[in-house]
């Protein structure tokens, strides 16, 4: 079923699901939604499975025209969503009529908003996933005039669900990211590690789904910045010869030849998705056990949201 016509594509709007794990050995990153809690909750609010294809909207100016009666939910960063010029409430299901216009005007908090539609978006799958990865020739960013379709045409007449305020994440402008040191922490001087863990780093304008370049005090290496190229995990913090860290994210290369000082823990990656160029970051070292504990807590938080949403009918 036709869902939307793209009136204005915005800065960077792409369709994603949970990505395509299993193809890194062919040089293909996993991709997928950047902020998992927001996107999964959005899908649940409209009655989809958590991993249904959803629209990820980075920054503002996206404008969509509803081509049918739809149930949507907008979650994630607050980009001032409106419907026909009136504020569109976030974190709850909302009915659109044919001809309604949904727009994202200005950024208030966070960076990436999610628009879930009942039925899920039905764009083309590549290697089992609808996650757009332009450099890999798998889909494209939204373009003006493009029509977005949904998988099913049945509108479920269930009550419009809502996530209670206390379960809505807030995206603070300043925070410290937890990291696990390594795998090449021994290629940095003691001073270099101290610089990394005690300084404030600012996200540069070179920040996208591949990675964020950070500005701040340079980190001292011990024996140069180059290593024999090896695979890179999501959240890795690479430090090339100039000593400035690069945080590697959802669409990052799967291998590279620079030393990695640390890796952001998985539980903090949703928050990274909502960080803007100009925002400041600090890093705090934790153990693997602490990282896994944090991930359990993240999961519990999502499961609680899931229970609350499902109890609404």
């Amino acid at each position: 079923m036709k869902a939307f016509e793209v009136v204005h594509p915005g800065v960077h709007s792409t369709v994603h699901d949970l990505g395509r794990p299993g193809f890194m050995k062919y040089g293909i990153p996993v991709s997928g939604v950047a902020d998992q809690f927001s996107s999964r909750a959005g899908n649940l609010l409209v009655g989809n499975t958590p991993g249904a294809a959803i629209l990820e909207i980075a920054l503002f100016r996206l404008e969509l025209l509803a081509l049918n009666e739809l149930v949507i939910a907008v979650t994630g960063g607050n980009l001032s969503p409106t419907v026909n010029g009136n504020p569109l409430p976030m974190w709850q299901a909302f009915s659109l009529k044919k001809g309604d216009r949904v727009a994202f005007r200005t950024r208030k908090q966070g960076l990436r908003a999610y628009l879930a539609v009942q039925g899920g978006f039905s764009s083309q799958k590549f290697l089992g996933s609808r996650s757009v990865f332009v450099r890999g020739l798998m889909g494209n960013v939204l373009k003006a005039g493009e029509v977005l379709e949904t998988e099913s045409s049945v509108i479920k007449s269930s009550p419009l669900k809502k996530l209670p305020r206390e379960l809505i994440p807030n995206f603070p402008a300043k925070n410290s990211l937890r990291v696990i040191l390594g795998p090449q922490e021994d290629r940095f001087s003691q001073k270099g590690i101290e610089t990394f863990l005690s300084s404030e780093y600012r996200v540069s304008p070179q920040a996208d789904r591949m990675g964020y370049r950070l500005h701040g005090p340079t980190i001292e290496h011990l024996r140069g910045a180059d290593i024999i190229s090896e695979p890179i995990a999501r959240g890795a913090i690479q430090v090339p010869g100039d000593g400035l860290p690069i945080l590697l994210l959802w669409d990052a290369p799967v291998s590279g030849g620079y030393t990695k000082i640390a890796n952001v823990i998985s539980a903090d990656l949703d928050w990274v998705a909502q960080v803007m160029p100009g925002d400041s970051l600090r890093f705090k070292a934790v153990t693997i056990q602490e990282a896994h504990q944090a991930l359990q807590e993240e999961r519990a938080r999502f499961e609680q949201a899931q229970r609350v949403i499902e109890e609404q009918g």
Partner: protein
Amino acid sequence: MPEWPKIRPSGDCAVLVEFENRIDPQINRSVRSLALAIEIERIPGIQEVLPAYRALMITYVPFEIEYQLLLEKIEFCMERARTIDPPPGRFFRLPTVYGSAHGPDLQRVSEIVHLSPEGVIRIFSETRFMVYFIGFICGLAYLGGLPEILRVPRLATPRTLVPGGSVGLAGGQANAIATDQPSGFNYIGRTFVSLYNPHVLPPVPFAAGDEIQFVPVSEEEALRARGQRAEDFL
């Protein structure tokens, strides 16, 4: 305890198993043996096994496998791997047009190594390159076996866009890039054979252990291979 292999965490959802720190076919075989041993074992909770030059990354789901158990399973597989031989690779002979617009760095490379352009083409095209692993972005084959005489530095300023199929060298390594990408390698030729296709499985024709020769042909013949599968040139 021998120094290698060594297991290191790489974040909270991956570990890296490192072998001796150099690029060497024998070390790479050990990496691939371990990758096979882990894949054969089908350990619940392990998601992907990524062999590289001298390291192997294993991604896992922390909810499905306890970290200590993961390490024990990998150590068990290290033992197993000693008796596992990676399968022999295939040998691809890819039609390649050298020089002119398809190999903009041929002249410069020949000046650096003090050979004629024809001499560079001859040495490069007679080499059977070994695929050590596939990585970077979308099917980039990391190749080994470049003769020492063709050692040239990377470009001081990387190109913002190099067309897919370009064949190049830098820092003692060679590569064939599968899709249009920025790169600091010196490109001396191009093959039009399809090296990446996200519509098929597997999306990349090569695997670690395969060998590739870039056979010099005319531009006309190179273009005839446009869109053909690399498997047609075994």
